[in-house]
C-alpha cells in the first residue's frame, strides 16, 4: 500500500504549479517606488541632470553637445575664421542636417518632477531638489527657444500613445513664461549654500542663469521688433538686472584678481580645480579621475577644425593704458609681433603672442599650417604641456557660468534699460579691466568710431558700446558669440570679410614670435629651396590673398560667400520630424516636406 500512496502523492505534486514561484523582481535596478523613497535617492536622481552641463567640447567647440557642430558659438561667429565650409553660413544646410532637436533630457527631468513628491521628507528639501530639476528644465527650454524660436512645451512624461506627441509648437511667450516660472522656482527653493567646487547648483547658480536667460529674452524682444514683443522687453531686462544684482549683493563671488594681470585671467581656464571665487559653475575635468577633454590638442598645432580670431576683433582690444588701439595712427599696418605688445593683458592670455612658451621651454609661434589661418591662434583653453597635443588628455576644468558674465549681464541690462550709472560701471566693467592690467579703467566719454564702423553700427550709447566690447573680449571663445549676435539682431556681421595678420610684403620671411628665426612666408609658389622651419602660406590661390595685392592684411575664405538672411535666426526643424508630425510647421525659409 505504501508504494501506492507514494504514487498518489507524487502525482498530486505534479499539479502544483505556483504563481508565487514566478514572481521575480529585478536584482540590480530600482522600481519607481523604491527610487523616490528617500532624500538620498532624490540626490542620486538629480545627479543625472549634471550631464546637461555643457561639456568642454560644447564650450570650446570641438563638437557641440547642445548646439551641434555647425551651429556652435565659436564656429558660427564673426570673430573667428573656421578653416572649413560652414554649410549653415555658406550654403547647403537643409532640414535634413538639422541639429539639436533632442528631448531625452526633458523626459528625464519631467519623470523626476512627476515622482519626487513620493519622498517622505520635509517639503523644503523636496523643493530644493525640484528646484534643481526646474533649473535644468529652464536651461533646456532656453536652449531650445534660442535655437528654434517657438517650440512645443511639455511639462509631463509622454507615453508612446499620447496625442500630445503630435501637437504643434507653442508660442515663444508661453514657453518663455514657463522658463521664467521654472527659474524663479529654482531661485526661491534651491539651497543658498554656495558650491565650493563650482560644480553643484545653488540659489546663486540659478540667479546667474536667470540673468543670462532674462537678458537674452529682453534683448531679443527689444531688437527683434518683428515679434511685436518690444513692450515686454523691459520686464525681462529688469529681471536680468535684478537677478544679477542679487548675486552681486550676496558677496559670494568676486572677480579673481591676485594682482598678476599677466596670469589671473587665463588661470580661470587652465586650472584643474575651478577657481570657485569667480567660477559659479564649471564642467570639472581631472587627471586623477581620468576625466579628460581635448582642448589642448584641438587648439595646438595639429588640429584642422579649430577657429582662430580675425584681425577686426583683435583690433578691439584696448591698449594697456586704457586707450584705443585703433586710435594709433597706422594701427592697421603694424606687424603681428608688434601689434600685440602693450595691450589689454587678456590678449596674450587669449591668443599666442611672442614669448609664449610650452611647459618644456620650447617657443611656440602661432602655427599657420593647418590651423590658426589668421595668425591669431587661440590658447585660452589649452594647456602648455606638449604631451597633451596628440593625446586627448587635457584636464583643465572649463567654466560654464562665471561671475564676470553676471557683471556683464547686469551692465548690459542696465544699459539697455537706460539706467546705467558710473557707479554701475565701477562695479562691473572697471573690475574686469582692472584685472586685465588696464591702468585707466574709467568710463570713456566718446563713442568708439571703430566699434561702430566694424561692429555695432546702430549702437549710440557710449556705455552700451563699451559693455559689448567688454563682453566680446572677456567672454571670447567661450561659446557666447552666436547667441549674442542673434539677440542683438547682428547676424549680418557673419557676412563680414575674414581678415588675418598684416603682411608687409609677399615672400618676406616673418618672425612672428621675435625669436630670431623666421616662421612663415606668404607666397604664391613655394620656392625651390625652402628655408628650414618656415611654413609657406600660399596666397592668390582663390582662397587667400593680401588686401593690397602683394602686401596688406591676409584675407581668407575668398572662395566662400557667407550669407545670413533673417530666416537663419531660427534653425530648421528636422525633416524627419516634420514627416512624423504634420502639426509641426517648419521655420519660414527652410525646406520642408
Amino acid at each position, binding site marked *: 500500500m505504501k508504494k*501506492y500512496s*507514494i*504514487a498518489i502523492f*507524487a*502525482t498530486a505534486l*505534479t*499539479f*502544483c504549479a505556483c*504563481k508565487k514561484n*514566478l*514572481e*521575480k*523582481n*529585478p*536584482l*540590480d*535596478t*530600482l*522600481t*519607481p517606488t*523604491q*527610487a523616490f523613497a528617500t532624500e538620498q*535617492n532624490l540626490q*542620486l*536622481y538629480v*545627479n*543625472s541632470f*549634471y*550631464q546637461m*552641463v555643457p561639456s568642454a567640447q560644447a564650450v570650446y567647440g570641438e563638437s557641440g553637445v547642445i548646439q551641434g557642430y555647425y551651429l556652435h558659438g565659436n564656429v558660427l561667429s564673426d570673430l573667428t575664421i573656421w578653416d572649413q565650409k560652414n554649410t549653415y553660413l555658406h550654403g547647403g544646410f537643409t532640414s535634413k542636417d538639422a541639429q539639436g*532637436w*533632442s*528631448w*531625452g*533630457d526633458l*523626459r*528625464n527631468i519631467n*519623470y*523626476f518632477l512627476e515622482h519626487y513628491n513620493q519622498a517622505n521628507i520635509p517639503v523644503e528639501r523636496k523643493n530644493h531638489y525640484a528646484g534643481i530639476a526646474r533649473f535644468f528644465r529652464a536651461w533646456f527650454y532656453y536652449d531650445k527657444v534660442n535655437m528654434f524660436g517657438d517650440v512645443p512645451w511639455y511639462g509631463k*512624461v*509622454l507615453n*508612446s*500613445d499620447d496625442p500630445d*506627441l503630435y501637437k504643434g509648437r507653442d508660442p515663444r511667450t508661453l514657453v518663455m513664461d514657463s522658463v521664467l516660472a521654472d527659474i524663479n522656482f529654482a531661485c526661491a527653493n534651491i539651497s543658498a549654500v554656495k*558650491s565650493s*567646487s563650482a*560644480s553643484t547648483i545653488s540659489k546663486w547658480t540659478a540667479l546667474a542663469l536667470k540673468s543670462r536667460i532674462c537678458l537674452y529674452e529682453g534683448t531679443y524682444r527689444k531688437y527683434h521688433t518683428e515679434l511685436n514683443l518690444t513692450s515686454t522687453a523691459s520686464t525681462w531686462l529688469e529681471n536680468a538686472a535684478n537677478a544679477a544684482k542679487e548675486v552681486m549683493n550676496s558677496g559670494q563671488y568676486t572677480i579673481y584678481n591676485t594682482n598678476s594681470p599677466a596670469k589671473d585671467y587665463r588661470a580661470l581656464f587652465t586650472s584643474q580645480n575651478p577657481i570657485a571665487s569667480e567660477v559659479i559653475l564649471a*564642467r*570639472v*575635468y*581631472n587627471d*586623477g*579621475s*581620468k*576625466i579628460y577633454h581635448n582642448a589642448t590638442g584641438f587648439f595646438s598645432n595639429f588640429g584642422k577644425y579649430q577657429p582662430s580670431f580675425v584681425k577686426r576683433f583683435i583690433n578691439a582690444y584696448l591698449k594697456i593704458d586704457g586707450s584705443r588701439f585703433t586710435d594709433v595712427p597706422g594701427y592697421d599696418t603694424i606687424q603681428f609681433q608688434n601689434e600685440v605688445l602693450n595691450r589689454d593683458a587678456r590678449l596674450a592670455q587669449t591668443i599666442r603672442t611672442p614669448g609664449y612658451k610650452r611647459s618644456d621651454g620650447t617657443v611656440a609661434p602661432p602655427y599657420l599650417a593647418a590651423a590658426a589661418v589668421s595668425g591669431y591662434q587661440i590658447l585660452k583653453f589649452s594647456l602648455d604641456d606638449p604631451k597633451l597635443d596628440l*593625446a586627448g*588628455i587635457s584636464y583643465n576644468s572649463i567654466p560654464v557660468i562665471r561671475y564676470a558674465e553676471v557683471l556683464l549681464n547686469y551692465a548690459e541690462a542696465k544699459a539697455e534699460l537706460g539706467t546705467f550709472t558710473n557707479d554701475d560701471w565701477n562695479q562691473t566693467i572697471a573690475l574686469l579691466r582692472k584685472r586685465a592690467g588696464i591702468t585707466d579703467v574709467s568710463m570713456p566719454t566718446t563713442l568708439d568710431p571703430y566699434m561702430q564702423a566694424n561692429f555695432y553700427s546702430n549702437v549710440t550709447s557710449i556705455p552700451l558700446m563699451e559693455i559689448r566690447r567688454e563682453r566680446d573680449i572677456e567672454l571670447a571663445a567661450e561659446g557666447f558669440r552666436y547667441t549674442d549676435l542673434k539677440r542683438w539682431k547682428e547676424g549680418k556681421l557673419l557676412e563680414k570679410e575674414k581678415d588675418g595678420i598684416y603682411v608687409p610684403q609677399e615672400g618676406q620671411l616673418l618672425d612672428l614670435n621675435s625669436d630670431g628665426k623666421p616662421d612663415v612666408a606668404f607666397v604664391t609658389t613655394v620656392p625651390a629651396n625652402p628655408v628650414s622651419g618656415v611654413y609657406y602660406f600660399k596666397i592668390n590661390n582663390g582662397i587667400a590673398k593680401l588686401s593690397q595685392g602683394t602686401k596688406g592684411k591676409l584675407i581668407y575664405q575668398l572662395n566662400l560667400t557667407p550669407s545670413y538672411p533673417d530666416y537663419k535666426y531660427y534653425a530648421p526643424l*528636422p525633416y524627419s*520630424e516634420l514627416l*512624423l508630425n504634420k502639426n509641426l510647421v517648419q521655420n519660414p525659409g527652410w525646406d520642408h516636406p
Partner: protein
Amino acid sequence: MKKVCLLLREKQLFLASNSLKISLWALCVTFFSMVSFHGNAQTVVTGIVKDATGIPLHQVNIVVKNSNAGTTTDANGQYRISKVGLSDTLVFSLVGFLSREVGVSGRQSIDVVLQKDVKMMNDVVIVGYGSQKKVNLTGAVDQVGSEYFENRPVPNIGRAMEGVIPNLNINYTSGRPTAAPAWNVRGLTSIGAGGEALILIDGVSADPRTLNPEDVASITVLKDAASAAIYGSRGAFGVILITTKNAGKAKPRVTFNSSYSFNQPINKPDVVTDGYTWAKLYKETYGGWYDYSQTPSSIGSSGLPFSDSYLDSLKYRSEHPGALPSITVNPVNGNYVYYGSTDWYNELYKKNIPSIENSISVSGGTDKVDYMLSGKMYKQEGIFNLRSDQYNKYDFRAKGGVQVTDWLKINGGTVFSSYDYTDPFRFNIWQVLNIFGNGTPLAMMYNPDGTMTQTFANSAGALTGGNKVISKQTFQQNNANFAATFLNKTLNIKGDVSYWITNSSTDDKVVPLSYSVKPGVISTTTTNQLAKTLGNYKYLSYNLYSDYSRTFGKHYFKALVGDNFEQVRYEQLAVSRDNLLIPDLNDFNLTVGDNKNISGGGYEWANNGLFGRLNYSFADKYLLEANGRWDGSSKFPESKMFGFFPSVSVGWRISEESFLKDKTSWLNELKFRGSYGSLGNSQISPYLYLEQLRANTSPVIIDGTRPAYINSPSALAGNFTWETITTLNGGMDFGLFMSRLRGSVDIYNRKSYDMVTPGPSLPAVFGTAVPRGNYADLETKGFEVSLNWNDRIRLKKPLSYSVRVTLADNVSYITKYNNPGDLINYEPYTFVTNYYVGQRVGDIWGYTTEGLFTSQDDIAKHADQSAIQVSGGNKLLPGDVKFKDLNGDGKVNKGKNTLADHGDWSVIGNSRPRYTYSFTTDFDWNNFSLTAFFQGVGKRDWYFNTTEFWGQYDVWYSVIPKHTLENNWSLNGGDPNSYWPRYRAPLVYGERELQPQTKYLQNVSYLRLKNISLGYSIPKKIISKAGIDNLQFYVSAQNIWTTSPLYKITKNIDVESLDYDGGARYNNNNYPTLKTVTVGARLTF
C-alpha cells in the same frame, strides 16, 4: 520505455569499446573449458555467430542472463565465454538483428544464427520525457549515436555536431577554443527576441561546452512544435536532447583514450609583405580618391610619415637590397624612419600548434547497482607567436544507480567541467593591424636598440609584456532522480532534481609598454589597469512526471502528465583599478590609482509548466499524439504570465496495411506523419515589462568625485506579450530493401507571430527610444531529408559499410513589420538591409554591373551614375565600374529607395545558406574502420565589406591581400576584362563604387571534408595475454579539405566562418578556425 532505452545504450557502449576477442582464445578453448568443467558446475562456451546468409557477425554482444558476465564476438564471429552455469541462458544481441536467447543446457559449443530485424522494432528514439519506438514517432525527430563523437578530438561537442543533423545549424565565427556557437534548428527563428534551440543533457538544461564528447551516447533533435511542445516556451525553436552513456548491466570496463593533434589555421591571409610594393599601392589608392592630386603625408594615423621622397628611398632599397639600413634617423627631428618589409602574420601567428587530449572512463553494473565515471583533459596551445594563448579544459562526470526495490530505482550524478584560457591580447589582431595603418609592412617591431617601435606598441605590441586576459569557468552540476514502476510496469513515475552552478571569472590586466620614437628617448603607453569580473550563474530545475499505458486489443493508450520548474539566478561583480605597482603581479592590493570602479548586476527568471501528452495507436497502424503545456514565465506581466500551447500529430503506417504488408519484398516500412502546434517563446530579457531605474557612475565630476546617479527608465510598450511560434510539419519515414535503405523526409512551415521588435517611429519629443513591442511576424519554410544505407559485403573477411546522406533547406519571409513606406536602406558599413513586409530574409540589394569603363568616351555615352561616388571629386575614369541602367531612365540610382520605386537596384543574391547537405560513410573490415564526413552548403551569396576581401579598396592603409592584385585593372595595363577595378579607395561604403553589385557578389557555397578517420584494432590474439580487451589506434583529420567557388577569387577567407545572422560580417582572420590532424590510441580492459 526507459528500460528499452537503457538497454540500447548499453549495447552501444559494448559495441563501441569491446570490439575484440581474438582467435587465440578459440585455439585455447578446449584446454580452458576442461579445466573449468572439472573445477565446478560451470563451463566455458565457445561458438560462432552468423547471419542468415552465413556471414560471421562481428561485435555481437553476448551476456549471461541475470549475471554480469559477458563478451562480444571477434571479426570472425567467434566468441568464448567462461564461467557459464550449465543451466544458464545466453543472450545474443546486435543492433539491426533480433536478439536471441539460447539455453546452455550443458553444451560447450553453441553456434547461433541471428535474424535481421528488418522492421527495426527496437530502434528507440529519445523524446521529451521519455522514449519512443522510431516506428511510432509522429513528429519530426532525428537522432545520431555516439559514432559521431568518438575518436574525434575536438574542444567541445558543438564542433563535432556541425552538419551532422539536417537543419541543425551550428555556427562558429571564430576558431578560439572558448568560442560559443549558436545552435539553431530549422533556420531563422525570430527577428525580435531571437531564440536558440533548447539544449538538454540527460534531461537538464546545460551548456553543451561542459560535456566531454566521448561521453555522448546519442543526440536527438526535436524539430517541430509537436515534438518540442512538451518543453514549452523554452523549446519554441527546437530541442536538442543529449544523453550520456550509461553503464547498465555489464562487467567492469576501463577505457583509456589518448590523442595528440597538430593544428593549423584553416586559412592564412596571403598578404603583400614587401614594403616598397605596399607603399606604391598605398600612394596609388590614396591618390585615387583625390583624383591623383594628393600624396598622403602619413600612413593612416599610425604616426608613420609618408612622402614621395620616402617612396623613392624605398624604391632604391628595393632595387639595391642590403645597400642601406632599414631603420635610419631623420636629421631634422631626430625620429626613427622605418623602411621595413615586415611579414606581420609570420611574426604574430604560429604555423603549427599542438593539442593533447587524454580521457579515461570506468563503467560497470550488476542487477542492483551500476556506475559510470569519466574524466577528460584537453590542452591546446595557442596560435599567437610572441606570447602564446593557452587553453586547458578538464571534464569529469560520474553517475550511478541503485535498484532499491523491484519497483524503485534511484540514480545520482555529478558533473564537473572547468576551463581556463589565457589570452595575451585582448583585441582583434586583424582589426588592430588595419586600424590606423599599423599593419603596413613598412612598420617594424623593434628599433635597433631593441626597444619597441611606437607603431608596434600601439598595436600588436600588447602581445609582449605582461598584458593578459585570463578567462576561467567552472561548472558543477548535481543531479538526483528516481524511477518507480507500478501496476505491472504500466504506471511509471519519475522525478528529478538538478542544480548547477557556473562560476566564471575574467582577469584583465593592461600594463604600460615602453617604446621609442627617437634614439635614447623612451616613452610609455598610459594605460595601467587591473580589472576582474566574476559571474555566478545558478540553475535549479525539477521535473516530476508519470505515465500510464494500456493496451486493449488493438488499441494502445499512453498518457503522460508532469510538472516542470526551472529557475535561474545570475550575479556579476566587476572591479577595476588603475596604477598597478608591479606589472607581473595580479593583486588589487598592488593597485593604487584613483580611478577605481565596482559594478554589480544580475537577473532572475523562472519558468513553470504543467504538461501532458496522450498517445493513441490502433493496430500499430494509426498513430495519434496530442501535447499540451500550460506554461508560466516570470518574464511577462502578471496578466500575461501564463499561456497554453497545444499541439497534435498523427501518423499512418501504411506499410502495415494489408494491401502492402508482405506484398512487396522491397518495402519494409512506410509511414506518413503530420503535426501542427504552437509554442510561446520566452527567450527574452527577464524584465522587459517593468520600469527599472538603474544606478550608474556619472561621467561628470561633482564636488571632487564621480557620484552615482539614477535616471528615468526606458519607456514600455503596452500589451507586452509572448511571441508565438506555430509549426506545421509533414513527414515520411521509410525502410526499403530489408531495411538496408532507411530514410526520412520532412517539410515544414514555421510562423513566428508578435515578435518583439522596435515599434513605429515616434516624434523625437517622446524623448527616449521607442519601446520594443510585439510588432512583427515571420514565416519560415523548409524541408529536410536524411537517407541511410547499411550493408555488408560478403568477402573472405566481410566488409560492412554505411552511407548517410542529409539535405536541408529553409527560407524566411517577413510577413509583418513596421516600415510604413516600404523603405529599403542598408547600413552603410555592413550593407545589412532593413526589414520590410514581403522581404526574403537575407536578400542582398545591389546594382547590376556592366563591366569596367574603357575610355572617357565610354563614360560620356553611358547613363549618369553620379549618384555613386568613385572619388572625392567623383570623377569617373576608365577602369571604374560601369553600372547598368536597368530602368533605362538615363540615370543609375536607387529611385526613392522604396519597394515601389527602387530605380536600378534589385535583389542580386541572398546571404542565408541554402541546401545544406552532408554525407557520411563508414567502412569496417578486418579490424580496420574508415569514416569520412563531408558537409557543405549548396547555395549562398555573400557580399564582403571588410579588408580581408577588399584590402586597400576598403581602407587606404589596409594590409593588402595578394588576391586583390591579380587581374587588377590598374596593374595589368588597363585590360577592360579585369576583375578588380581602378585601384582607389575607400569605396566599400554606403553609396560608393564598391557597394553591393553583381560583379563582386561571391558564391560562397562550399563542400568541406570535416572529418576523416582511420582506425585499426590490434588482433586480440596479440593483446589478450596482457589482459586487454581492445586496443585501437587511429588517425583522424578535421577540416583538411574544402572547395568553394569563392576560392577561385581568394583563399584568404574561411567560407564556413561567415556570420550567420548578422549579415556581411567576417571576423575569422583574427582567430582562425583550425584544421587538425590527430593520432591517438584507445585501450579497453
